């Protein structure tokens, strides 16, 4: 595939040099491709990303991350992953270095092993279905920390590890082809430490990827840039606009990270994106629900994205409140849920698209976008309000329908506003404007740096003149009434008015006068 060729040189180069960071190849596919080419054996951990994708992934390992780098990042998570991955891959992972070359063609393990496709990139992304079993051991180890992509779908086994991974990096593991459960949610929870690490890999990953993994890089970037927070989100929205496509609008926070990073995945990848997008949303939703604020970087963006998605006022208040909640509880919960959700979050292009569809879409790799919201999220929302509350199933169905319609209408109108703005990117301001004007909903934290300017109410000159005249006449009338000389007052009034206009106009003024008089006297 094309991806193989271009990406390999780029990703491979940085990894070996930078030694780190989760490989520029955000997605397992690119990673694999890249890896096959240059990557020196050092990238052991890199990963043997299992490539479910049709692309013959040469070597997941190359991710160029030298083994030494991996250890610090993967940390304890790696060991746990390794056994899993080993099981999944059924191959000795630890042989990556020597066997990088094998990856390209052989993917026996990859095909069979559902293991989450983690970018074999240096960071220890867990490569899913990496053809070569060799990379098996390495990828799991480096991946957890680096996290870039790790697909949650298969990653049930990784579920446990995902927590560690999640803390680290997360993003996008869209699981090329894995469809579903990519642990994109992991993105949401970038650990503070991991975020830093990820910044580098994210950026690197962004460049090479043209493939679907692009989403993951964006998410990675997002995490890496989590520091920027809301301001970043605001600013990012303005910049990336060009990169985003309507499909990717789902992740506002991703855009902040991406900032002009690689653009949308190739068209063939789109359908995958679609499927993942709902997943991402769901993950975001779950994230928000859990209010996981693992790192300062993540919370603002997560919350903001979550808020946007949810569009439930309750959630808003809760999400804000929850920010201060201890991270730990949420982390574990979110991680677990995140793992389930595919890296749909990652899917969002690194570029701008800040505003995304409101509900997190979960579904598992449905290509036609099945349902956006799941019953589980409704349950979570209700729990936030009242833990003992129970809802009938029909009620839940209806709520889900309402939510989906809401998201649909908002997105549609937002897109038409974006089009009106002569842009092909859906941005946060489009959605914000629509909500403010038509739904009377304000979402703090997304408006960016612009100050809302005041527009003086437009008044007609004619109306002003009339009002002035009426005032004068009324004052005069009152004075006259005080003296009980109504008749003279009328004459005076007429005279005053006559100076201004014709008789007809005067009569009209008198009508106005009476009307206003009634008002003034209540």
């Amino acid at each position, binding site marked *: 595939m094309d991806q193989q060729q271009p990406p390999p040189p780029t990703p491979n180069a940085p990894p070996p040099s930078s030694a780190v960071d989760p490989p520029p190849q955000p997605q397992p596919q690119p990673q694999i491709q890249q890896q096959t080419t240059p990557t020196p054996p050092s990238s052991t951990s890199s990963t043997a990303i299992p490539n479910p994708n049709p692309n013959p992934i040469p070597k997941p390992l190359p991710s160029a991350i030298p083994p030494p780098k991996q250890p610090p990042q993967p940390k304890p998570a790696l060991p746990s992953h390794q056994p899993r991955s080993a099981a999944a891959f059924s191959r000795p992972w630890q042989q990556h270095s020597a066997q990088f070359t094998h990856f390209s063609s052989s993917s026996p393990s990859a095909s069979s092993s559902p293991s989450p496709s983690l970018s074999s990139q240096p960071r220890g992304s867990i490569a899913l279905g990496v053809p070569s079993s060799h990379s098996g051991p390495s990828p799991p180890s480096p991946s957890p920390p680096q996290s870039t992509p790790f697909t949650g779908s298969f990653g049930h086994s990784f579920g446990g590890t995902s927590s560690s991974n999640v803390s680290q990096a997360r993003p996008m593991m869209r699981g090329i082809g894995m469809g579903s459960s990519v642990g994109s949610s992991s993105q949401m929870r970038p650990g503070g430490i991991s975020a830093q690490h990820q910044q580098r890999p994210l950026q690197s990953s962004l460049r090479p990827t043209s493939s679907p993994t692009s989403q993951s890089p964006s998410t990675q970037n997002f995490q890496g840039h989590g520091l920027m927070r809301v301001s970043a989100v605001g600013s990012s929205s303005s910049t990336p606009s060009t990169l985003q496509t309507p499909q990717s609008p789902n992740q506002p926070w991703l855009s902040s990270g991406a900032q002009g990073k690689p653009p949308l995945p190739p068209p063939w990848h789109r359908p995958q994106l679609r499927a993942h997008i709902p997943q991402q949303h769901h993950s975001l939703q779950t994230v928000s629900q859990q209010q996981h604020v693992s790192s300062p970087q993540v919370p603002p963006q997560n*919350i903001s994205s979550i808020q946007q998605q949810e569009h439930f006022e309750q959630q808003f208040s809760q999400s804000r409140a929850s920010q201060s909640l201890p991270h730990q509880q949420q982390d574990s919960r979110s991680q677990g849920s995140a793992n389930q959700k595919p890296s749909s979050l990652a899917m969002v292009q690194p570029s701008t698209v800040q505003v995304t569809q409101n509900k997190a879409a979960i579904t598992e790799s449905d290509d036609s976008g099945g349902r956006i919201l799941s019953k589980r999220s409704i349950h979570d929302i209700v729990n936030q309000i009242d833990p003992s509350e129970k809802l009938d199933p029909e009620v839940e169905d209806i709520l889900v329908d309402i939510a989906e319609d809401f998201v649909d209408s908002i997105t549609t109108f937002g897109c038409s506003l974006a089009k009106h703005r002569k842009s092909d990117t859906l941005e946060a301001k489009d959605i914000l404007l629509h909500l403010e004007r038509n739904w009377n909903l304000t979402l703090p934290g997304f408006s960016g740096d612009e100050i809302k300017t005041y527009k003086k109410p437009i008044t007609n000159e004619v109306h002003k003149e009339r009002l002035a005249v009426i005032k004068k006449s009324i004052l005069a009338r009152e004075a006259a009434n005080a003296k009980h000389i109504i008749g003279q007052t009328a004459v005076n009034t007429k005279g005053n008015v006559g100076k201004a206009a014709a008789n007809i106009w005067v009569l009209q003024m008198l009508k106005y006068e009476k009307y206003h008089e009634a008002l003034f006297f209540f």
Partner: protein
Amino acid sequence: MSNPSAGASSKSKVGSSQPSETSFKRKRGVFQKDLQHMMYGFGDDPNPLPETVALVEDIVVEYVTDMAHKAQDIGSKRGKLSVDDFLYLIRKDLPKLNRCTELLSMQEELKQARKAFEVDEEKLGTLE
């Protein structure tokens, strides 16, 4: 377009001309220090997360801006913007309204106290 100076006033005259994209850039962290203490007072951590503070600040700024715009709308009908326009806007929110009236009355009292103080000083000065 728009004034690059971006003066203190948020009201821009650009309103009539073009959509203000480059309107006055909003300074971030204007209320950061005070808000941290206030949040602590309301139950948050003594050191709240910077993102939380930023969000709360966004909420505050948005609220103030919205209030000012609405007050201007009302005030322009009567002519000039006045304190009563703001009081009218919060008429439904009793705690706020009462607090506002209390603060305004305190301000009046202080003004008069200062005036009396100055007058006394003058008298003393002249006497001596």
